[in-house]
């Protein structure tokens, strides 16, 4: 699979796919998309990068161990629910804030934080599995 064409295209493809996965993640609240499907797209991006250029460049590029990313995602998701403790509402209640960034209102919410958590869990765990499988073949 390590043809010159694939190796040249793969990094660009990967970055595009990761960008697209974040787009899918963020549009997920009211439209099709969300953390799970976004996470799968990002994980397949890393898998493609791994197939083209080997596993160690992916691990270097990710910086954190994929399982650590998954752990952080799980923590984020759990804490997004705990936030409602301080508002006197039940666990996992959606809380919203609308700060103005550069004059544009941006809706920030705990469901979004939860979804980012899901995204990271999926990215972390699927990438970890994919890299482990690829390692057998190439390294």
């Amino acid at each position: 699979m390590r043809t010159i064409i694939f190796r040249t295209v793969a990094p660009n493809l990967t970055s595009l796919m990761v960008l697209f996965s974040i787009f899918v993640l963020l549009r997920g609240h009211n439209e099709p998309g969300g953390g799970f499907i976004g996470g799968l797209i990002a994980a397949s991006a890393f898998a493609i990068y791994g197939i083209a250029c080997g596993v160690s460049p992916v691990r270097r590029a990710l910086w954190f161990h994929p399982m650590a990313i998954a752990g952080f995602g799980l923590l984020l998701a759990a804490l997004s629910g705990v936030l409602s403790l301080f508002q006197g509402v039940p666990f996992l209640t959606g809380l919203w804030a609308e700060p103005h960034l550069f004059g544009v209102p941006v809706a920030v919410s705990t469901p979004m934080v939860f979804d980012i958590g899901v995204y990271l869990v999926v990215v972390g765990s699927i990438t970890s599995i994919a890299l482990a499988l690829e390692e057998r073949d190439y390294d």
Partner: protein
Amino acid sequence: MAGMAGKAVDISGAMVTGPVDPADWLVIAPVVIPVVFGALLLMFRKETREHAAVAIIGLLLLVAADAALLAHVLARGHVVMTMGRWLPPFGISFTADALGATLALTAGVVALVAGFYSIRDIGNTGRRYGFYPFFLLMMAGVSGSFLTGDIFNLYVWFEVLLISSFGLLILGSEHEQIDGATKYAFLNLVATTLFLIATGYLYGIFGTLNMADIARKASAVGPTAPIMTLAMLYFFAFAMKAAAFPVNFWLPASYHTPRVVVSALFAGLLTKVGIYALLRTQVMLFPAQRDIIAELIAWVAAATMILGALGALAQSDIRRMMGFIVVSGIGVMLAGLALASQLGLSATIFYAVHSMLVMTALYILAGLMSERAGSHVLHDMGGLYRAYPFMTAIALVLFLAVAGLPPFSGLWPKVFVVKAALDVGAWWLAFSVLLSGILTTIALARVFALAFWRDGATAAVEDLKPLRLGYVVLVALVVPVVWIGVDPEPLLSLSGKAAADLLDPARYIGAVFPEGGGS
């Protein structure tokens, strides 16, 4: 919601509008705490040195939350919280009653004790494989199963604890472990699939997954709905989880393969989650159907306890033998479920608490015995009494307790099961409880005679880890066993209360639907 900032929407029909009592958070804390700590441990998977300390802090918080929850339930009645401010049955409810809170607390205590033992038992390799994250996430699954008030959510927690238990089972990836894990994984996946099918079917019939709502509707619908099928499917699925005969063979095939502390945790906690689910579905949700299959449950119970004890007699590997003793205890709990009288159910709950403590301790003891005797095969063991008198004393207490002999915790639930069986004239069920007790006594007397009394050489001490932590952990488990045996009154009134709540779900339903509202 942000998009609706301008419009006033009346949400009182769908959502909780009043403030939530902060004490209600206690019902979700036993799930959130292990998840958060498990996630933290997963993030710092390579810093193995601090793992045990972080995990034990998490488990201490878990026990504190469980204890506070139980105290709250006893003082103020059922604690209910429905996630995301939705009203039940739309939101997922967590409902803690005396049964769930008692079992959650016992599970927490057992996990804490096992957490201390893991310092001795789990080396650096096990930690790098992720023992502690799996452990904490499994505890989240166990606590979630005991506290959730939604049957699909129960399925989710079953999956959480199952997936974590797979990870724990193959810690180290030895050949034997993979072999045991395959049987365990396959049969448990069959059971969860049945559980899921039954739940889908249930949703088709009732249009709700909230347990309080199901209990309400199941008693209201007539004989037209196929609830019998549901009750049977759930019985089969959970009996498989609880390792009841004839679907018990996965347990002795897999529980002897992992690390000692892992088998101890599994034996203490996992089968009891199956028993809990049986109590919840058969007694609270479908009592009329349970009455019809009561005789079947009773035969299954009798077969499970006697064949479990016979299996224990036939084993020469001490850890395999413990697996069969777990199975035998499941039979006693099923007998209480089959009788389903106030006394029978309270005996089941009492026995579940006793079994969690004693089975965990027995597996840890078996681990220490094989370590010191240099073998886990009974024929090669010997001389333990002369070399380790203190271990012998602990072993004697635990053996008597698990066989149901006085003055330890196993006596009372067996007495109550026998009495409950004789009350309804089921003399053969009472007889099988007594027979299984005798067979278990013989099996364990064999261990005692061969491993402790018989002369023999024990392993050289120099290259072994010190026993101190092992003894501390065992004493921590033996103290409640003796205490419950000598003074059973507090646990008896607790399990009696839990059984009364199961038999009359009106309080449970009333706690979830305070105004009798809902669909």
